[in-house]
């Protein structure tokens, strides 16, 4: 009685086995790389907004200071979104009937706030505090990217736990003098103190910064 399988069976077996192997490898690789794709992190992907507000224009162009709109960034956990009122301080004077700004005017008129689409969102169990970061010389651009170059705002960094930890474990490279925190195009000069010096100056102790309770309560 002849055997069950023909010669092709062996080739097929090999084929199947190697495909499985390849599949496994791709899966693993995917699992490794996917989280860091901009698709997963949303980094660099501009968010549509009810009003196409351009940081590029307001910050890069007009040179508005971050704090003009994000008033509470130095004292509070949240940087604070500008109330409609803030927009209208200027836009009651200029572009008073620009089509683009209709929602803003309407908001002020009806007293219903503008619903912006969130760009940087953290889960409820993460407690981030802007005030302390600004106070310790972490610049806006360090996390939010070159905001002055964003026609529509996008996410500057993945805001992943591992990403946070990178800096919390070794802050030095990401520090700059307090005064320069809001400076969009700041470059370290020979005069600028090193990260280590800044850490000393601002009493930053990395050994305490990777505690879970720093961000989770």
């Amino acid at each position, binding site marked *: 009685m002849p055997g069950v399988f023909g010669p092709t069976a062996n080739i097929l077996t090999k084929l199947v086995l190697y495909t499985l192997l390849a599949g496994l490898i791709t899966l693993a690789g995917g699992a490794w790389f996917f989280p860091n794709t901009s698709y997963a992190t949303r980094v660099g992907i501009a968010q549509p907004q009810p009003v196409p507000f351009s940081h590029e224009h307001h910050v890069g162009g007009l040179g508005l200071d971050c704090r003009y709109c994000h*008033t*509470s960034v130095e*004292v*509070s*956990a*949240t940087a*604070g*979104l*500008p*109330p*409609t*009122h803030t927009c209208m301080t200027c836009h009651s004077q200029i572009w008073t009937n620009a089509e683009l700004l209709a929602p803003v005017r309407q*908001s*002020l008129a009806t*007293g*219903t*706030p*503008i*619903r*912006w*689409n*969130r760009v940087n*969102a*953290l*889960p*409820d*169990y993460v*407690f981030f*505090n802007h*005030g*302390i970061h600004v*106070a*310790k010389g972490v610049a806006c651009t360090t996390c939010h990217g070159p905001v002055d170059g964003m026609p529509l705002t996008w996410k500057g960094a993945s805001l992943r736990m591992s990403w946070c930890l990178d800096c919390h474990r070794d802050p030095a490279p990401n520090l700059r003098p307090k005064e320069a925190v809001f400076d969009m195009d700041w470059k370290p000069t020979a005069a600028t103190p090193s990260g280590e010096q800044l850490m000393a100056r*601002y*009493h930053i*102790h990395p*050994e*305490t910064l990777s*505690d*879970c*309770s*720093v961000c*989770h*309560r």
Partner: protein
Amino acid sequence: MTARKELAERIEGRLAGRSGRSLWRSLDELAREPAVLEMLRAEFPGLPDLAEARVGRRRLLELMGASFALAGLTGCGPGEAAGEAADQAIPYVTTPPGLVPGVARHVATAISRGGYADGVLVVQQMGRPVQLEGNPDHPASLGALDPIIQAGILDLYDPDRSRSVLKAGRAASTNGMLKALVDRLPALAANGGGGLRLLTGTVTSPTLARQVAALKRRFPAMQWHRWEADGRDTLRAGSVLAFGRPVDTLLHLDRAKTILAIESDFLDGAPGHLRYARDFARRRRAAGEGRPEEMSRLYAIESSPTLAGARADHRFAVRPNEIEAAVRALAAELGAGPAEWRRNAPGWLAAVARDLSASRSTALVHAGPAQPPAVHALVHAINDALGAPGQTVTYIEPVEADPVDHGDSLKGLVADMAAGRVDTLLTLGANPVFTAPADLDFAGALAKVPLSVHLGTAPDETAMLCTWHVPEAHELERWGDLRAFDGTVTIQQPQTRPLWGGWSPQELLAVLDGETRPDGHAIVRATWMERFQGKGDADGMWTDALRLGIVPDSAAAPLSVSLLPGLADRLPPPPASIPASTGGGTLTALFRPDPWLRDGRYANLGWLQELPRPFTTLTWDNALLIAPATAERLGLKNEDVVELRSAAGTLRAPVWRLAGHAPDCVTLPFGFGRRVVGRVGRDVGFDAFPLRRLDQLWQLPGVELRKTGETHRLAATQHHQMIDSPDAVRHATLDAFRRDPGFARSEEPEHSLYPPYEYPRNAWGMAISLDACIGCNACTAACQGENNIAVVGKEEVLRNRQMHWIRIDTWYEGEAAAPEQTLFQPMTCMHCENAPCEVVCPVAATMHDADGLNVMVYNRCVGTRFCSNNCPYKVRRFNYFNYAADDNRLPMSWNPDVSVRARGVMEKCTYCVQRIRNARIAADRENRPIRDGEVKTACQQACPAEAIVFGDLNDPDSAVSRRKASPLDYGVLTDLNTRPRTTYQARLRNPNPELGEA
């Protein structure tokens, strides 16, 4: 009792809306009908958009910022802690002045309890109140708070609160109500307000008093009635007996060396009890702090256990009728009464009397509101004989506005109503249909009143039976003023726009003055401008008063009153030992307010329902409390349902044997069994009011119990109590302490295989003084509020799944009949340095941080529950279900600084890490270390007795380090080498040598 049954039927009739189920159902359905919806919208700009989708906690914060209307009373808690996808950020249109998003503000105001003010600081986040803390500047709270006041925040956000005007129990328009009232005015004006009656609870509000006075001028014939179900009539009457005039008595426990508490409520419920607790505890702690001579001695005589009794060095559990006899005998002993009173005095009395008179002028006697006027009169006499006035007690003008006898007042009202002499009845805040003595049949009389308007924060029994119900603005939503136990005035300022519109009593009263859109702010301000006039800058004083939370030096001046002679003859005859059995029974029933629900007004607050009652640790139920011996005699076990029969009627109640309860009497806590109440308070406990009669408000003799054979499961949180001093609770007498100061210390295993970790920055630790703890549960409530601890409900408590992070363990020493002493031990996470829980977690969801906190990371927890098994203190709590989501509260009422835990996650005390972290951030921003006392845990803050101290162990001068330096300091289960950061200071007792080591 027919009247009651009939009442029940009538209420049911009113409730029988289209759904036929409950008022709320019918209202919701009504609200879904476009027409009604339109009408309601017109009425309330703040009415929620019922189509609002569910919103997470953090999102809600922003929404809140936008406006309350947007907040969307989505009635659902947070779901899985993950952030929602496609979420939005919603800024203000215009930022309210002085508001910084994400930064908490503290605003001073006051909340009333039984009419008296407790000063609070409201913690505001994004312009909404999220928490209540005590106002340190307020004499009645001194920064502490009791559970009831803390629950005020829950009350504010209670989704079952009254949302619209009701006519005969159906949603109606405010204008209709206004019209009805205003139309009545001419007629009233014509007959001088003959048929106009006002019914309130205890009122201390100067504004309200002013308004009533004004109204009286306009309608001379109108009358103002008062009814407070757990009021203080007896004290008032007592002072009238003694001094011929009503006075309030202030206690100075800080000066009292020897105290006699006659079923006194000075630790649990009396106006100023927080203050009293602090003064008392300070003197109790004295010995441990090296001043043994200052330690006070407390005697207690009582039938139904009180917190004061639990802290007494000698506690005498006696039958109710024996109390007055004892007090008379004591009066005689101290020369404040005829010698024949001394007859059949209990043996211990002489010794007590000697001790009292030995410490003249530092002695103090106080009796609780359940004691008859005679006792109070005698107490005055005794205090007088002891030279207490001016020393340990001071008398002041009654704080209550225009004090009257509530009983008589209500009786008169009902009589007139029944006789049809009342055509307009305004009920402000009170709920007489539920709380009035049964023999009056208030409901029956109410039916005869053509126009009855009820003002209340929730639709209650009275609201259902009045022709109109008006939603009352919560005390955090309105302007008003209140006086504290010592007369200090606080001006209440609104913390938020009324969630559902709502009127303040002042505003409603103003309507009678013809104003149809009265302005509460103006009314209250008018009062004070008037008073401030001539004292200088009135506006400045007004703003100061608002800022401080008190009107400076508004406390009442001491009053010098003298005993009228011949007290002995004026006293009503003492009750016969056992009154000629009226119901055949030989037992006496004692009516006492439930410690948390009081007269039932807080029945819909989950925190209070689930907060264990002192001694019994019962939740979600009241029970007929009875002495173990008596229960033995009657063959009753816990949870047996008995039928209680008396002349006043019968009722069925489950039994709970309570160690230390006096024999031959039973305690019936009232405040449960509400008929018309929100989702939380529905069908909880039994209603004791039906047995309460005007002439027998506090005790009902001639009661008998019949076993029904049924049982009713009672949800207690502690199942093993009677034990001879477990190692965890250590105590000794003052003498023993003098002989061996270190008695509490236990040797710790010094050797460890592990190299110790260093905590160079801070080493947070806690010290809890059993000497100070009075077992009031304020810490548990505070923790629940601060840390977003969910309410789980009776079924889950029966499974022993309550979530409280800090619990009060109760222990008895001695035998059940008359325990020698009751010990309270607040138990919470010890933050062990060698934490057994951490090692066994397979995912590192719990670990130590650099400051030595035992940290719990909820979002990492997978729920193996090994940590709970391995925790020797059993202080970890597990979310067996999605409790937070099932909790009946608005999303906006959670504390935004703390994660709301999801299903399947372990949780526990974190030493309020969110507060520590905020302090750390503040300190780091200023590049300075955290100051001692800068971080207060919620439990520490709320504790009236200063039993809990928290701070940095690295700082030798910190309060906590000093506490731990006490010789009484000891750690629990340290033999396991857990090295707990929380330690206790042992309890000391100061017994009278004459009475032996009782």
